[in-house]
Every structure is written in C-alpha cells, then in structure tokens.
C-alpha cells in the first residue's frame, strides 16, 4: 500500500512544479506513508510477522527494522529538502522545472526500496535493488556538470555489473532450490528456503552465495568495491546523499542478510558466510582509516565513514553471536539516524559556505553557533563516543569479536575506530575554529537545532534502551540467527 503511495506520489510530482503544490503533495504523501508504514510495523512486531495479499508482501522483524529506517529517514530528508532545494533554485544552481523531476525520482527511489524490504521473494528483491540503482543514477547526476556525470557514470556502471553478479547468484540459488520447491516463485521465497536449506546442493549454493555477496556487496560498498560510493555521495544533492548512505546501503545489506540467514542453515554451515562477511568488514575498516585520515572533501569524508560503518555492520552480523548481531541491528538503526543527520547538516553548511573543501571552511562556531553544536553532536555520534548509542552498539559488536576468540582482531578493530575518530576530530576541529573568511553571511535561526533531533534520539538510546525496542531487536536477532 505504501509502495502504491510512493509511486502515486512520484507520478503526481510530475504534474506541476509550483512550490506550494509540491510542498502540499509531499507532506500529504509523507503523512500517508508514515501512517501506513507505522501500522504495518506495529502489526509485524505484535504478531512477529505480517503478510499482505496472500503473502505477495510479507514482513518479519528484520524487514520491519529496515522499513522503519526507510520511513524515518525519508520523512526527515524530504522535509529537509523542501527548504534545501528551494535554496538551490534560488541560487540558480538548478532550473525550477527540474524540481518536479527531483521529487519524482526521489519517490521512485523510495518506492523501490520499500519494495525491497516488503517482498518475500529473493528474485523480486533483486529487481528492487536494481531498480534503486536506476532510480538514483539520474539523482546522482542531477547537477549535470562534469563531475556529476562522471560520478553517475561510475555509479551506474559499477553497480550494474555488481548487481548482475547478484542475479547470477540468485539463479544459482534457484537451480539449487527448484528440485525441492518446484520451478516456481516459491523456489526463491525466503520463508520457504530456510526450511529446506539443509537439502540445498552445496556446490551450486556456494557458487551462488559467493556471487551474490560480491554483487550486493558492491552496492553496500564493501571495500574494495566501494570506489563508486564516495563519488556518488559527494556529487549528489545532499538530501540524496543522506538517503543513499543512510538507507540504500542498508537495503543492500538487508539483501545480503536474507542470504545470510539461509546460508547459515546449509551444509556449508554458519562459518562459511560468516567468515566472508568478517573479511569484508575488516578490510573496509582498515582501508577507510587511510581515506578518512587524509580527507580534504567533507562530503567524501562522510561517504567513507559510511563505508566504514557498513564494515562494522558486516563484522557484527558476520560474527553471528547473539550479542554481536544485537549490536549490529542496533547499530544499523543508529548509524542511519546519525549519518542522515550529518549529511543534512553538512549539506546546509556546504550550501552556506559554497565549498566542500575542509581547509576552506573555518570558524563555524563564530558564524553559525547552532550548526556548530549540531555538528559536534554528529561528530561524537558517528565516532561512537559515549554516551552516544553508537558506543553501546559498537561495544557489543566488539565483545562479539572477543567471544569468538579473536582478541587480536578485536584490538585492531578498536585501534582502527580510534584512528578514524582522530581523523574526524582533526577535520572537524579545523572547521569549527579559526577565523572565518569574510564571505560568509552570519546569522541563522535557532530552528537549525531541530535538525539534531535524530542525534538526540541516538544520545538517549546510548543511556537507556526502552524495553519495547529491546524486544524488537531481540526478534530481529532471532530472525537472523534462527532462520524463520
């Protein structure tokens, strides 16, 4: 239903480019989206799982988690971009007519993501993921200048290739499952697959899983397939970047997780896929240290940190211990909130200063104190500093590393995280203080602080985790570790 909402909204956007019209339509769509989505999530969490239309759409706790992330971030980002895109048009960066296309693609994008988390069929899921790629390509290249085109090109080429690997993997899975579930859609249904996982032909499945992890991994942005990510994130309009790294990456990860739950039950055993994920996770972490330490472009900085956090998530899920998975699921949520917030605030900062180069941004605290405060919160949140929630989640993931007797890896991971923290702190301090260049027009409304709401949630979750959320997370853990 909310997919419908999204699609209709998208088409509706094309009708007219009047500001008021767009505003109205957007907010209407958001309200509907929130209501229907919220209701679904509630049903899902109450019943443990929830189907719609004879199971064409189907949600369990895991999908509910992703669903909530998508909706929250969508609301936050679109509300922000209403003002943001206005400014862009005002500053003649974009023609007014392009606004409707902007919203059209955004909503298509959201629709595809909703499809991804709502379908119980791995094939359809693949279609959805590919759909997200196509929907976002033009958004990435939205400014149509050289760099934008370059970014879009790299994005679409790399992701398409990656995705086609995933398709091959899916086919292999189909071949493996067909003998048991028949030559039909059910052969790709992740409700059925875990039941017969143990009978799947290991060779076919192994090949399939490998192709899929690499394929979707490209989309998630595991190193070394991450190379499209910073370009796309830095060139896209900031709200889009927020959506990309706060939601899209998670959706791709979700696809991998579906496979993960099945793979754990096959003859290959949980370790096989777990090791792959851990490998990718650590590699991503280690490489990102370098990129983050020496970064000059603030949006790329955030993009790389997204890669890093995807690495952390992969690590957490790959470990497969109760606590680690719990932490990872929590971290997925928290990272989405924090990163969206950071992209939004940095986006407005870039808009104000007109540059993305860290060395050229100075003295934020003097000129825009509120922006500064939000950025400080964001900095602490993204680097997992207590008392922020990210600290809790990362700690659980790390303890998972120790539980599975990798003290050395654990130590290294903490070290990487610290170095990344050092990098972030260094860049942000540079931007906070020093004497601002005269060009900036000072002054901002207190309402800037409102942008920090997600971070305050993260902060709160760091100090106290309500029972309900905890139960939900435990359900997620059960889904991931225990199959159905």
């Amino acid at each position, binding site marked *: 239903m909310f997919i419908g909402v999204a699609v209709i909204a998208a088409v509706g956007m094309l009708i007219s480019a009047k500001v008021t019209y767009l505003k109205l339509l957007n907010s209407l769509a958001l309200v509907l989206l929130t209501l229907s989505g919220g209701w679904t999530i509630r049903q899902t969490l109450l019943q443990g799982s929830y189907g719609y239309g004879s199971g064409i759409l189907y949600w369990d706790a895991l999908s509910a988690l992703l669903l909530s992330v998508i909706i929250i971030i969508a609301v936050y980002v679109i509300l922000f971009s209403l003002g943001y895109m206005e400014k862009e048009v005002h500053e003649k960066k974009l023609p007014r007519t392009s606004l409707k296309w902007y919203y059209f693609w955004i909503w298509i994008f959201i629709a595809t993501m909703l499809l991804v988390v709502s379908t119980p069929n791995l094939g359809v899921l693949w279609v959805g993921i590919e759909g997200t790629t196509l929907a976002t390509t033009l958004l990435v290249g939205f400014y149509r200048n050289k760099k934008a085109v370059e970014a879009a090109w790299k994005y679409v080429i790399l992701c398409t290739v990656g995705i086609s690997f995933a398709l091959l993997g899916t086919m292999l899975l189909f071949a493996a499952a067909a003998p048991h579930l028949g030559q039909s859609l059910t052969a790709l249904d992740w409700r059925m697959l875990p039941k017969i996982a143990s009978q799947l032909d290991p060779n076919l499945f192994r090949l399939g899983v490998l192709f899929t992890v*690499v394929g979707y991994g490209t989309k998630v942005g595991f190193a070394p397939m991450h190379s499209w990510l*910073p370009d796309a994130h830095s060139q896209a309009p900031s709200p889009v970047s927020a959506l990309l790294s706060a939601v899209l990456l998670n959706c791709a990860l979700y696809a991998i997780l579906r496979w993960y739950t099945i793979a754990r039950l096959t003859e290959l055993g949980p370790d096989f896929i777990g090791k792959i994920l851990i490998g990718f996770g650590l590699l991503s972490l280690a490489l990102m*240290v370098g990129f983050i330490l020496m970064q000059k472009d603030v949006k790329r900085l955030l993009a790389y940190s997204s890669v890093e956090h995807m690495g952390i998530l992969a690590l957490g899920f790959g470990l497969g211990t109760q606590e680690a998975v719990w932490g990872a699921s929590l971290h997925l949520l928290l990272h989405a909130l924090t990163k969206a917030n950071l992209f939004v605030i940095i986006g407005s900062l870039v808009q104000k200063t007109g540059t993305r180069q860290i060395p050229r941004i100075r003295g934020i605290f003097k000129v825009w104190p509120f922006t500064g405060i939000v950025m400080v919160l964001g900095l602490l949140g993204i680097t997992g*500093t207590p008392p922020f929630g990210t600290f809790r989640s990362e700690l659980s993931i790390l303890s998972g590393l120790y539980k599975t007797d990798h003290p050395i890896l654990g130590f290294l991971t*903490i070290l990487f995280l610290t170095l990344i923290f050092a990098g972030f702190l260094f860049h942000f301090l540079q931007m906070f203080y020093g004497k601002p260049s005269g060009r900036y027009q000072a002054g901002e409304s207190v309402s800037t602080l409102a942008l920090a709401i997600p971070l305050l949630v993260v902060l709160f979750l760091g100090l106290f985790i309500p029972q309900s959320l905890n139960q939900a997370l435990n359900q997620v853990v059960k889904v991931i570790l225990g199959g159905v």
Partner: protein
Amino acid sequence: MANKESQSVRQLLMSLCIVLAGAGLVWGFVTSRSGDWVQTGLKFFTGEGAERWLSWKVDGLTMFFLFILLLGQGFSSLYALGYLKEYEEKKKSLWPFYVNWFLFLGSMFGVLLADDGFSFLLTWEMMSLFSFFLVLYENEDHQNRRSAYIYLVMTHVATVFLTAATLFLYTKTGSFAFEVWASGAPTLTTIQLNLVFLAFFIGLGTKAGFVPFHIWLPHAHSAAPSPVSSLMSGVMVKVALYLFLRLVWLTLGPGPVWWGWLFLLVGALSAFVGILSASVQSDLKKLLAFSTIENVGILGIALGSAFLARSWNNDWAMDLALVAFFWHTLQHMLLKSLLFMEAGNIIQATHTRNLERLGGLLKRMPKTALGALIGILGITALPPLGGFWGELILFQSLWTNTLNLTNGWSKVVLPLAIGVLALVGGLSIATFVKWFGVSFLGQARSSVTERATEAHFVQVLAPLLICGLAVLSVLWPSATLALLNLPLSVLRTSDVERIRLALGTPLNLSSSYLVLLIFLTVIVVLLSKRGLRRVTATWNCGAPLTPSMQYTAGGLTNPIRVLFAKVLGSRRHVEGDFGGTRYSLRSLRYEGRIKEVFEDFLYRPLIRGLVWLATQIRKLQEGSIHLYLGYLLITVIVVLIIGR
C-alpha cells in the same frame, strides 16, 4: 545589563558547585563514620535482554578519592568564581565552560563510583571528552587547539587498551562486574594476566601521565583555564591512579613481581624526567604541569614499593608504601591546585605565561605571593609541610623492603630509588626557587608586570584556604591518618590499628617539628629585633642597576641544563657582534633550545609512518573507472577461488 545577568549566573552556578561539594563532604564524613557503604545501580539492557546494572559502589577506597575530588571541586569552583570574571569582561560566552565543568565533575564521580567495566568505560570516556572541551575553552589560540587535540587523541589511544582489556575480561568471566573479574582473575593463564595488566598499565598510565605516555600532559594542563588545570592536575590524574588500585591491586590480584618493578622503574623515570624538564621550563604553567608528572612518578614509586612488598609479603613495608601513597596523593592534590591557582592569578594580572617577563610581583600581589611561598615549601618536599612527610614514609618503606629481602640485586636497586628521589628533591628545589623567585622577587622584567595588581578577593581566598588545610594536615596528623585508614582498610587484610600505632610516632614528629620550627623562628626574630634599618640601592660595583642585570629564568637553571645536556638534548647558540676589534663586544645573542626527546624519537616517527600509510591507501582511489572495475573482477575471482 547582560553583564550583570551573566555575573549573577556565574555566582549562582559556582556557589552551587561549592555547596554541592560541601554537602558531599558532610555526607562522606557521616558515611565513613557509620561505615555502611552504598552499593546500587541503574537498570539497563544488554544484548541478551537480560538485565544488567549500570552499577556503582562506595567503599573506603572510593571514599578517600571522593574526598579528594570534593575538595578539589570546592576549591577550584571557589577560585573559578573569581577567575571567570575576566571572560565576562571579554564578552566571551561562559556557557560552554559551565556545561562542561559540571559534566566533567559528574563524569569524574562516575569513574570513581563505577563498579563494572561498562560504566567504567562509559564514564571514563566522558571524563576525557568533557575535560577536552574545557581545555578547548580558550580556543582562539591555535596552539591551545593543538594541545587539546593531542590530549584527546592520546587518551583515546589509551582507551583502546582499556577497552580491549575490559572486553577480554568480560568474555573470559562473562560479566562486567569487578567482583566477578576479581574472582575470575586466578583462572587466567599467566600470559593472559600479564597482557591484561599491560593493557591497563598503558591505558591508565597515559591518563596518569607516566613517562613515556606523558607528552599530552604539559600541553593540556598549560592550555586549560587555570581552574581547570588545577582540577585536572589535582584530581583527574589521581583518578587514574585510583583505577590502578581498583583494577590492578584489587581485581587482578597479586601478580608476578615484575609488575611492582615496572611501577617502580616507570615511576622513577617519570619523576626524574618530569622534574628535569620542569626545571628548564620558562613557561609559568608548563613548569607546574611537568612537576605534576614528577609527583605522579613519586606516587608510581610508592605503588611499586607497595606491589613489591605485597609479592614479597612484607606487610610492614606494604603498609608504609600505601600510607605514603595516599598521604602524597592528598598533599599533591592540595598543593598543586594551589600553585595552579596562583599561576592563574599571575597570568590574569600580567597576561603572560613567560617567566622571563615577570619579576617583583611580591610587592604588587602580596597575598598571592604568600600562598605561592607556602605552596612551594610544600611541593618541594621540605619540612615542615606535608610533601616531606610523605616522602619520609616512602623512604622508610623502600628501606624496610630492602632490609627484609634475603638476597638479590634488588637490595641494590631499591636504595638507588631512594637516591633518585633525593636527586628529584634537589631538582624540585631548584625548579620552584626559579618559579617563585623569578616571578615574585627582584625587579619587574617588563612593563606588563609593572602594571600588575592583586587578584580578585576569592582568587586569593581559595589558595589561602588550601594553605590552611595543608598546614592543618601536618599539624593534626592523627586526623589525616584517620582519613588514610579508609582506603587502607580496603586494600589490606590484616588489622589497620597497627599502622596507626606505628605511624603515630613519625607523624607526631611532623607536628612537633612544625611547632618547634615556628617557635624557634619566632624566638630568633625577637632576639634579633633591635638595631636600625635603612633602605638603600643594591650594590652593583657602583654601576646603576637595570632589570636586565638580574639572573634570567633560563640562566638560573642553566647549569642543570648543561649538566643534563644529553638527556634534555639541549643546545645553545651564541652569536656576538664584535665591532671590528676582538675586545669590544657590541651585542650578544644567546639562544638555547630543548628537544622534546620523547616526541622526537617516539611519537613523530609513529605519526609519519601512519600518514605515509594513509597516503599509500589513498592511491587506490585515483579516479580511473577501469581500475575500479579491475578491483571488482579481481575480488570476484579471489573470492571464488577462496570460497571453493
């Protein structure tokens, strides 16, 4: 108008802080009298959904350090009440200061009270964070920002070790609670135990400022506003030492002998390096910061002696070492925060931290000078004030340790530690004579100093109160000893009464010494009263006396610099302008510089290596899509081949 408002806010908040401290002291006094310790916590969730407690606990050990913290809080807040006035006049918003001030104090309480690894890490990190923001408060100066950055990064790297150790113990014992760790520690293999110990040592040692993890300390303590420096130097450093007792002494239990040796040697090294670098400093606050490193070193020696005595089960020496440790902790907290406050007064009066520009301040700010004089008497470990008696007991402990050893080279090394302590004492006299003499005595060396005036009333009151307390602690040793009993009763098993009896003598000696000295001085003064006095010019071979003729701060300790040139890596550069002939000297430029040995040989290469690595990594992303596709292809093939 706004100014008035902020003034009232300042007074309100700071006096609130003081009142809280007072209330805390009263509460602490009552609790430790009744001796029923609190142990409670907050409910929160873990991955298993099982309930765990964000738990805290108060026992004698905690209580002692709580007293330290509360005293520090009270005095520094009282001082800040006056100190912050300057910022108000500069129209600099004080809110960042207030917020972080309270949060910093709160997190320190948290660390002291924490009873499980998780809450320990949480509060510990917060402590670093908020102190970082406080150091960053005067962020207009680029140098200060750099100092703050170094500080936070170093503490974080230290925290890496702490986190690793905590998680390791957690996974081994299946719980975060300290008790469980304590009971689980014996089950660890020796190697694991040693590794955990080393992790704790590095992690906590960095915060405490042990050499070679000390380089952040002088930067941070001198960059921070003076009330903050006095709090960091007086209290935060002690919190780290507290954790040594909590996590190593009580939790990991009696380890192998080399733990003690490590403490002893690192302590000796820190004491020596710290005071040596202090003696050649000419920055008012950096000097004090380095002397903090020295005192931490002395405390480290005390810890080492205690650990050694414990593993040689020589109870008497252990008791002495512990008493010395706590006594010195108390004294250093009082005196160092006092000195930082006086330094703050000087800085506010003259707006310079450079000793070479000060001089003759005693006449301009007499009350500050009085406090400072008492401060240096105490900090240089000279009788009659507290610093000395702590070292006396430490000497005794080392001596007893040596005497009761059956054999081994330890019998030579331990007395050498005494020698080091004596050397450190001598150096500290030189250091603080320089600090006090150059800034307060003689003639003003620059115009800024001539305009200096006495500081605000509370800024003078707070230090003098501390002086009173310092004197009292010596004058009434049995009370101090009663305070020391709190932690001792936790740390050691056998009866505490014995110590009280045994230590009664020397500590009563302390009071009698003080009394006698004052008595004698008074008598002498009275006897030498008669005779008339006349104020004249200083004799200068008949030539007129200019301020530049005084010994400079650099010159005063130059012999030390020359003697320890190797250690300090000090080098001098003299260039004279001889007008034509070899005999008439027009002008002479002298320039002496000191290398930060540890920064140059330990940290710089590390950073350089890291940056090099990072640049190498960044080459991966150099823009060609062909390359990226290549990565993809290679990854697929590699994964496929590994996977099969």
